[in-house]
């Protein structure tokens, strides 16, 4: 291996690592606020790519139907809740939030699909669709179980992963898709070819991480989420609704996953079932950070990206094995330095 190849592999690794870092942040966010281990995040990534690819072909995929279906379901659940609690006055607002918004997104997607809008508009449409799906999934699947143990929530996550995998196959078919590159430009620095596309990916990731830091540090909603992550009961007593925190978290996480999907689309061919492996790499990053630390999770994801890229050069058949085996030394290290008295749940 000479320096050029090493530089190329490093560039690939950093690009992928930046995407995994976004995912890892989404996973840590969801886990700390809601205790959900967000296994279906991979499907959100894949659906991001595949929805954009569908829009390129002028098709609004089955995601429109799913948005409509889940909006109706969420609406029914909210209605039932308001009726049972005798709080009919709250119903219009709940229906606007849970039905009108996602239905509007679905409608826009449906009408915009055949229009052949420019790539950037299609990206925005994709992000809107995927983001709308996040809170709906929380409302329909997780919220009724919000008080259950982490284990039950994890099993639900895995079940949803399965379900979304099946839906993905139904909506997008078994063929893989790639989305067009945002730019094919590249330049040379010190004899090393750097693609602008990679820079774009890394830049977008950094910008998103910065935006998240601002959101959590400076805004009331961001602080509310942090408070919920630290102490659910305490946050509730301060008037932060856990349902609201959950829905907001899932919206943010879905948005991050949507970004991952859009960013990864031009780099690799994405199939309906590609998301799981991508999200697991985010998980490895998140586990390195103990599912708690954002900076360590991001750094860990970068490491995952680099290891993946270099092992694909040396032992491409075993690249997944190498990446996933990475969590064993990580867990071993955490286990050996763990104190006996970590809190349960």
């Amino acid at each position, binding site marked *: 291996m000479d320096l050029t190849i090493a530089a190329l592999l490093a560039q690939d690794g950093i690009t992928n690592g930046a995407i995994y870092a976004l995912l890892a942040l989404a996973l840590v966010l969801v886990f700390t606020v809601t205790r959900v281990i967000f296994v279906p995040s991979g499907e959100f990534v894949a659906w991001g790519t595949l929805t954009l690819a569908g829009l390129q072909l002028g098709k609004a995929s089955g995601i429109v139907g799913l948005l409509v279906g889940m909006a109706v379901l969420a609406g029914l659940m909210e209605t039932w809740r308001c009726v049972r609690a005798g709080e009919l006055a709250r119903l219009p607002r709940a229906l606007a939030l849970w039905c009108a918004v996602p239905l509007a997104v679905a409608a826009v997607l449906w009408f915009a699909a055949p229009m052949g809008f420019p790539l950037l508009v299609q990206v925005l449409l994709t992000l809107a669709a995927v983001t709308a799906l996040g809170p709906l999934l929380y409302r329909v699947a997780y919220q009724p179980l919000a008080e259950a143990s982490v284990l039950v929530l994890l099993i639900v996550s895995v079940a949803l992963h399965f379900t979304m995998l*099946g839906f993905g196959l139904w909506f997008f078919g078994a063929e893989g898709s790639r989305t067009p590159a945002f730019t094919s430009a590249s330049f040379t620095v010190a004899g090393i070819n750097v693609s602008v596309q990679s820079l774009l990916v890394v830049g977008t990731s950094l910008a998103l991480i910065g935006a998240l830091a601002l959101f959590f540090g400076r805004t009331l909603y961001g602080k509310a989420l942090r408070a919920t992550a630290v102490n659910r009961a305490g946050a509730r007593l301060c008037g932060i609704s856990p349902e609201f925190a959950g829905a907001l978290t899932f919206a943010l996480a879905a948005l991050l996953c949507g970004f991952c999907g859009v960013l990864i689309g031009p780099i690799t061919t994405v199939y309906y079932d590609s998301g799981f492996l991508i999200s697991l790499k985010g998980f490895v990053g998140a586990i390195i950070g103990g599912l708690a630390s954002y900076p360590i999770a991001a750094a860990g994801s970068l490491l995952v990206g680099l290891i993946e890229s270099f092992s694909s050069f040396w032992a491409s058949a*075993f690249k997944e094995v190498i990446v996933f085996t990475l969590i064993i030394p990580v867990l071993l290290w955490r286990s050996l330095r763990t104190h006996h008295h970590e809190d349960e749940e």
Partner: protein
Amino acid sequence: MGLQRIALAILLLLLAAVPVVAPAFWVTLANYIGLYSMVALGLVLLTGVAGQTSFGQAAFVGIGAYTSAYLTTRYALSPWITLVIGVAFTCAVALFLGFITLRMRGHYLPLATIAWGISLYYVFGNLEALGGHTGMSGIPALSLGGIELKDERRYFYLIWLLTLAALWTTRNLLDSRPGRAVRALKGGLDMVEAFGVDAARLKIVVFVYAAVLACISGWLYAHLQRFVNPTPFGINQGIEYLFMAVVGGAGSVWGAVVGATLITLMKEWLQDLLPVLLGRQGNFELVVFGLLMVLILQFARDGVWPWIARFVPRAAVKPVPDAEPLPARPRAVGNGPLLEVKQARKQFGGLVAVDNLSFDIHAGEIVGLIGPNGAGKSTTFALISGALPLTSGEVRLRGESIGSRPPYEIARRGLGRTFQHVKLIGAMSVLDNVAIGAYLRGSSGVVRAALKLDRAEEARVRAEAARAVARVGLSGHMHDAAGSLALGQQRIVEIARALASDPALLLLDEPAAGLRYLEKQELARLLRALRDEGMTILLVEHDMDFVMGLTDRLVVMDFGEKLAEGKPADIQRNPAVREAYLGGVA
């Protein structure tokens, strides 16, 4: 013969008739149901009972299948030898995975098993020696006593014999010394540790047990199919096994069989139906399974089995026959104090909760630890019981330093305790809860328990627990679920459980809270009687009447430090104590 046995006998007869009367298609399905049940059974124990889970069971099935496939085709070893090798290999892997994940609290096991399941799938698929993605064929059939089990109808008997054996051992295990501790892991981790259970070790043992069942299932699969490829050992199958356990009912061994049957039949049906409905080929049954799972967890978290169980006759509660008492701890202590707390200090960040605290307790005393709210009583309690490590200083029990040791080691040295927030396993009977207290007085391990070789010891443990229940006056509630008792009674059960451990020092955390006046008097009488038999008791209590009338000596704490120490009457007159309690007005 009870109704339950008749039901079981009918079931076995029906099962035995399957290969004789059923068409080949149904025999094949029944074979698979048996294989899947065995794996799901391990998950019932791991997930439903112990509260941990694994998505990588299919990978253990794969180890069993591939080990045998490789060694029988390549080196012509007997399949019975390769079974042993496969099981040993599985144990090694499971021990390793368990060691790195289960000593930590949290949810690292499921995540690690997902990664492990995927990795192993790629290893199977990419190793040329294992046939890559095309797999390996030509695996020999099993033969047993000269009979070759080539025919599926004959193989059926082997599969179901082993599956039923696994059911039997798992049931035995749940109703035993280690089994009670496993049943208490979910929701009672601190409690079992306080009675001498090394919870991390026990979780690892359960994980290994589940992995071994999966491995045996894989071995059976390889010699049934006589061909293996990586697909049935991937992560999707691993998740499907978990579905079987949860859908069937992860709280009961029969849930595994019910779940395996339901999922297998549904899959068969959906694979025919869905492509027709959707006009497309694909694994669409995943959608249905996923939704079914979410619905079951939302509306019937215990799965299908509890619904069926209502129609199964229940076995009557058996009385507890008397048996020879378990060996008691020698009471003689020598000269020194039983418990010595020396300059104990506990700091949480900048907050000093306990500072420079020293006091002794001598054998045969009842000592009360009192003080205003926030004085550091609970922290002191946690330091003695090992729930919190000391920042500095020392705690010695019977001359041995116990400061900062894990609770299960302190329990071994003769400390029995109750909890301020009652920690009983609500679904278990009072007797079983109390029997957990006697954990350290028995010695039967998982293997003895699974094979039912522990009955003599078990009878003594149960008799001992029954005596402890009788001692605190709750014989009438012996077989009731502990969760059904009133709070005051539950506190008394906690004392019975601590008594069952035959402690040298009994630590009681607010034992009188929630008791009525007469119950308090009853409790005081019991504690005095225990002291007169040589028991030493340290208690934290807020009810001053109760404390003053009962204790021999009091230690008063305020702001983390010892304020005073002495006989109850002197403490009542102590000006510093009066000021701390009454704010200096008196």
